[in-house]
């Protein structure tokens, strides 16, 4: 029952949703809570098929609000708990995730983005960036990893549990419908054999002993009476978040070590198209680089600015109508660089289209 689901390393060829289920198993996740929605449902289906073999659990709830709150409940009980949702389901998740922000509850949620607004498509988009990073009635004290493919899905799903439990912020793995449904090769591995130790979990309620006598009192609150009280609490969370940010931020850059005619900014699966555009542009004598933020929250601002400073102009590419763009503008504020865009809400972007846009923008 308790044998390791993944031993050693092996190359596999599977869908992204299946990858997420394997990654959660390898990360020693105890329980998944969820409510079905395309293109996320297969994560639940793979998990329910695999989990019982390794003594893990699953609870299907009546909706996404409940899925979010039960995930919080699992974490409060000291379990490495996670969920997965997307689109309209992600909208409903915002209430529980605000609570997780306020009470510093290390939930992990996998989001294979679908098209929006509203029901829209069940296929693909990058339109849940703002919601995943800043949704709810809070300040966006969350950690968001934007994955670009199956190896990322495996690596960052495992990492999300550790980041969440180490820093105690709700953590998200932001994928998309393409990554969820497509098959491509990757290497799955036992985290321990790569030197990745899972951060120990512990219950946040129901602790032994009398509060105030045997142990410090646990204050798990999301309700406050005065402005001053709330202000203190939120500012403390803000300070913790700012302090942790430099340790959390992740990025990748490509050909950004020299002066560039253009720096292409893209995240997630679109980053792959940007990487594919670089050789196409090089053939045409255009010096192009690419910067990919892996964490969208916190954003690797300093690193992005450093790359952008070396470019004559910026091109922001995303499958949304300016959600990454806003974060980029915020990060690069004060840097006098023209910003061109290729915004394709709910639609994929190919390397060829990015290369064409660069040529047009010259």
């Amino acid at each position, binding site marked *: 029952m308790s044998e390791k689901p993944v031993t050693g390393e092996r190359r596999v*060829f599977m869908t992204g949703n299946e990858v997420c289920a394997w990654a959660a198993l390898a990360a020693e996740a105890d329980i998944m809570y969820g409510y079905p929605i395309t293109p996320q449902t297969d994560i639940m289906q793979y998990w329910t098929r695999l989990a019982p073999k390794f003594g893990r659990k699953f609870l299907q709830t009546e909706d996404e609000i409940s899925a979010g709150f039960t995930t919080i409940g699992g974490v409060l009980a000291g379990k490495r708990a996670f969920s997965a949702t997307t689109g309209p389901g992600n909208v409903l998740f915002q209430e529980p995730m605000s609570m997780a922000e306020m009470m510093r509850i290390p939930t992990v949620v996998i989001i294979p983005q679908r098209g929006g607004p509203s029901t829209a498509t*069940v296929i693909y988009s990058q339109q849940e960036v703002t919601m995943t990073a800043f949704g709810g009635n809070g300040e966006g004290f969350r950690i968001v990893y934007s994955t670009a493919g199956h190896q990322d899905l495996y690596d960052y799903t495992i990492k999300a549990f550790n980041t969440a439990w180490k820093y105690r912020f709700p953590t998200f793995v932001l994928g998309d419908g393409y990554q969820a*449904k*497509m*098959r491509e090769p990757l290497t799955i591995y036992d985290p321990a054999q790569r030197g990745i130790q899972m951060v120990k979990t512990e219950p946040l309620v129901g602790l032994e002993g009398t509060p105030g006598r045997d142990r410090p009192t646990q204050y798990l609150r999301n309700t406050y009476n005065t402005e001053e009280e709330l202000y203190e609490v939120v500012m403390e969370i803000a300070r913790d978040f700012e302090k942790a940010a430099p340790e959390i931020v992740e990025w990748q850059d490509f050909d950004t070590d020299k002066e560039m005619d253009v720096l292409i900014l893209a995240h997630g699966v*679109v980053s792959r198209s940007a990487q594919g555009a670089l050789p196409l542009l090089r053939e045409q004598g255009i010096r192009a680089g690419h910067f990919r933020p892996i964490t969208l929250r916190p954003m690797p601002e300093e690193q992005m600015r450093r790359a952008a400073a070396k470019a004559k102009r910026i091109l922001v590419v995303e499958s949304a109508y300016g959600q990454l763009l806003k974060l980029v503008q915020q990060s690069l504020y004060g840097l006098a660089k023209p910003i061109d865009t290729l915004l394709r809400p709910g639609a*994929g972007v*190919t390397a060829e289209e990015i290369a064409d846009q660069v040529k047009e923008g010259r």
Partner: protein
Amino acid sequence: MAIRMVLAGEGGQGVQIIANILAESANAEGKEAIYIPNFGVEQRGGVSIAFVQIDDQRINSPKFPKADIVVALSNRAVNRTRQYVDGRTTFIYDNSLVAAAEIGAKVMGIQAVEADPRSQRQTEAVDDSKKRDQVELPGEAANIIGIPANDIAKNELHPRVFNIIVLGTLLKATEVVPLDRIKEAIEEKLGDKFAKNQALRELNYKALDKGMSLVDRLV
């Protein structure tokens, strides 16, 4: 070398299975491969479409503008895949299913499609369904291969191996993956069923051979 493929047909024709077999055999061959099934609302009563890419290097974007190989197994599939065809594309279709208009007779087809149907309504006495159902093949393709896979499957083998015949033709015409790998992938997919019924294996291999015999040159 990168190979990009689009396969499309009606639900139940088995294009997703062929796509999956192609991608898995390429992966088994040690190549990089990506397979995206369509899974939109189209799945319910629409054209089923699959995107496959095979490369020696890591593949960038999962989607692509033009394909090296396009397989279309119904009239609607021809129309749905037209956007992926250019001067380098090998276009494979089932000529026992797709009612192709003469490529030279483009004008006829356009008139039938573009005219306002209300002004064109025929009296019941005139049956023009044959003409209306015709679809124009993408004339810009580098190669167009028509095979009567559906008829052969129905008359000579079994309707269920229709897609394997198509796969055979695709392999023969393009050599995109070695035949042995394809057989391994089929074995992996259907091994359980083969174990129970040996005749099934033979039927599938026969379909593969038949498909390969339908085209005699490498494009």
